[in-house]
C-alpha cells in the first residue's frame, strides 16, 4: 500500500488537521504490512 499524505497548509491553524492526518498515516502503516508513504 502506497500512501500519499497531503497536508493543505502549514500554518498554526492547520496544525490539528495535519497532526491527525499524520496519525491516520501511522495507523495505516501499523495495520498494513509493507505500507509506505510516497510523500
Amino acid at each position, binding site marked *: *500500500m*502506497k*500512501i*500519499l*499524505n*497531503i*497536508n*493543505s*497548509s502549514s500554518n498554526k*491553524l*492547520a496544525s*490539528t*488537521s*495535519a497532526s*491527525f*492526518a*499524520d*496519525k*491516520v*498515516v501511522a*495507523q*495505516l502503516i501499523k*495495520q*498494513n504490512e509493507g505500507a509506505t508513504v*510516497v*510523500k
Partner: protein
Amino acid sequence: MPFIDDTILDALFVQGERTKEQKDTLKLSDELVNEVIDADVLVIGSPIYNFSVPASLKAYFDLIARVGLTFKYGETGPIGLLENKKAYIVMSSGGTEIGSDADFAGNYIKYFLGFIGITEVEFVKLDQLMFGSEPKIEAATKKIAEIG
C-alpha cells in the same frame, strides 16, 4: 502551490504538441498527478478557512485535474480515471460544522475526489473545536484507531 494562470492554461489546452516551455510549465502538475496515480491511499489533512478549503488545497486540486490523466469526458459527462483508491479526509474547524450548509470544504473535497474517480472516501472530523475540543479529539482518535 502555484495558482492557475494564463501560462498554465495555455500549456493545458494546447492544440497539437506542447513546446518545451509548455512542458516545463506543467512539470509540477505532471509530478503531482503521477504521485496521485501511484498512490493507493490519499490522506488529506485540511482545516476549514472561512467555510471553505485553504487556497493551497484548491490550487493543488486544480493542478491534478488533468484531462486524459485523472479524468476524461464521456458522452454523459466527466469520468474519473483514478480507480481502486481510497481517501481519508481529516478536517478541522473552529466554528463550522462539517456537513452543514456553511461547510463548503468537506462536500467540495468529496465531490472533487469523485470527479477524478476516488469514490471511497472517509472523513475524520475535528470540527467546531472552539466550542469544546475534547469530545471531538476523543471521537477522532477512536475513529483513527478503527482504521484497518
